[in-house]
């Protein structure tokens, strides 16, 4: 999201041609220059750059972020390749501004006879709060009939799955984040956990997913879950059930879900309204948003309205401009506009001159606290146009009632 502080960003992509040596060299460099038309002119300068070098079956990459005038947030290096049945992914992250090595990860995977095996190893340095730590994990997955079995053996590391989100490293000064799949949790090695997941276990009218987790402390939990249980006479109501046994507790979670289906160009954002601590009490249906959308050839027109701004908000353009619960947005790392209750949008996507799409987006936001006509609060404009097979031009603007808040110009060259 372009900052509300009045920073205008100009994106200049500067690419220098470089001769390929043995392999294929490609990459891009992005330069963000902040200009505030209402303020002191140039406000910020961010430099992002990436280089890819493909040598045989392996692609070596580096990418970094430099916030001028002097914060080199990080520089990452990676190697990704596949030789025969073996896949290799490695990542190394450095913090140049503090000359620190931060994190390293290696993933080797192969698939044999229908069994997928992946070995994950990672190390977190003591330059990161939460470190030092290192460890590895072995993931084995396969299918037996209708059953999907996954085994994760943990030796000081945990890996991302539908219950665990891996590791995110945050730069404390800027809030910038990098995410990786392998989370080293302790210094030293040794067995630290085993997770077994079994999906698709048929049980009369439903398929059950089970998960069993042991750590070095012993049994941690076993859970049984069923999703999408239909209530015969109530087609718009479904339940997810999760029964979890831990050493000293047992919990049963019933999660009712509303399923209204799709109604052409109108989408109602709604959820069941009830006692949060007792799903046995359903008081009604809470409508918290409405979206009207219509595609007219290459033009898409949308109108999104939030009915409960205390708990919901419209996500920014980067996250689809949809109504989302604020807590979910935070959990998922989505940016939202907290104060705008309506968005009117016109988007165009057509063929450009040179094997690229010509796109234009105009979003108009409304805030009930605004004193402008129709509660107008902000207008966001994005446009991208190809100027050649390897060259694209980008334009962006945000305008507030007090004037143009930010301007973005950019060039993108693939080389």
């Amino acid at each position: 999201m372009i900052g509300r502080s009045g920073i205008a960003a100009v994106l200049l992509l500067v690419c220098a041609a470089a001769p390929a040596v043995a392999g294929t060299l490609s990459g891009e460099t992005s330069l963000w220059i902040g200009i505030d038309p209402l303020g002191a002119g140039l406000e910020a300068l961010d430099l992002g750059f990436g280089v890819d070098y493909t040598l045989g079956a392996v692609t070596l990459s580096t990418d970094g972020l430099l916030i001028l005038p002097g914060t080199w947030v990080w520089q990452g290096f990676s190697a990704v390749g596949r030789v025969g049945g073996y896949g290799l992914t490695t990542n190394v992250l450095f913090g140049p501004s503090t000359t620190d090595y931060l994190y390293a990860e290696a993933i080797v995977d192969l698939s044999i006879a229908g069994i997928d095996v992946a070995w994950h190893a990672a190390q977190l340095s003591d330059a990161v709060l939460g470190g030092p730590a290192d460890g590895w994990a072995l993931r084995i997955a396969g299918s037996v009939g209708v059953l999907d079995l996954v085994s994760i053996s943990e030796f000081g590391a945990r890996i991302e799955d539908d219950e665990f989100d891996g590791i995110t490293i945050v730069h404390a000064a800027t809030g910038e984040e990098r995410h990786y799949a392998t989370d080293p949790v302790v210094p030293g090695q040794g067995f630290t956990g085993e997770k077994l997941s079994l999906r698709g276990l048929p049980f009369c009218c439903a398929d059950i997913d089970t998960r069993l987790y042991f750590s070095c402390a012993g049994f941690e939990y076993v859970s049984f879950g069923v999703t999408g249980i239909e209530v015969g006479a109530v087609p718009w109501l479904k339940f997810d059930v999760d029964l979890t046994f831990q050493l000293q507790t047992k919990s049963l979670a019933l999660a009712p879900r509303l399923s209204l289906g799709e109604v052409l160009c109108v989408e109602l954002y709604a959820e069941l309204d009830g006692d949060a601590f007792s799903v046995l009490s359903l008081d009604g249906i809470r409508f918290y948003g409405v979206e009207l959308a219509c595609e007219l050839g290459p033009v898409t027109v949308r109108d999104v309205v939030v009915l409960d701004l205390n708990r919901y908000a419209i996500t920014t353009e980067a996250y689809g401009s949809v109504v989302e619960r604020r807590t979910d947005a935070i959990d998922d790392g989505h940016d939202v506009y907290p104060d705008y209750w309506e968005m009117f949008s016109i988007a165009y996507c057509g063929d450009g001159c040179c094997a690229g799409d010509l796109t234009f987006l105009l979003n108009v936001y409304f805030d009930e606290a605004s004193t402008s006509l129709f509660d107008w609060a902000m207008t966001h404009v994005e446009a991208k146009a190809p100027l050649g097979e390897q060259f694209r031009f980008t334009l962006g603007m945000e305008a507030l009632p007090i004037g143009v808040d930010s301007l973005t110009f950019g060039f993108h060259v693939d080389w």
Partner: protein
Amino acid sequence: MTWKATRLGSILLLVGLMLTLTACFGHWFTPPQVAVLIVGPPVQVGGRYEVLISVADMPDGGVAGIQLGTVAQRAIEFANVDVGTIVAEGQSGFRVTAQDYAAGPPVEGCLIAVYGGAPIVSGPVLKLSFEATGVPAVTLDDTRIWLANDTPTWIAGWSLDTGPAYYTKKVGTR
């Protein structure tokens, strides 16, 4: 070839099962989880400076409210900062409900920020922005800071840290 692959897969599964059954052998230890309030260094953004205040590894489900001092005992001290330009902004869903700054010297401030939804275990919670009159610095007095979760109780056992340039944010613990 298929027979060999099947055999290899079976061996791998067997090894995994054996490791599960044999368990730890004393290698496992859990480092103490220390809740930290992190004050980042001032970062120049155009003509202004920004300081991020973050939390990491907060216990009891995370932080739902933070109080940095009172009007009588302010917890934030600014150096080389124009007091009239100070703006505090909530992050990660936090909202600043009250703030007050005194010209000093030294320039001092206090504020309260709360979040009505899910508490924050790790991540930025506040951003202070201001214009500088010299090399700026922001310090907090941890004896005048209170963190609360939504149980509702005060969070104890946390520490103030201005040192780490990076921290880890972990969600999903099961």
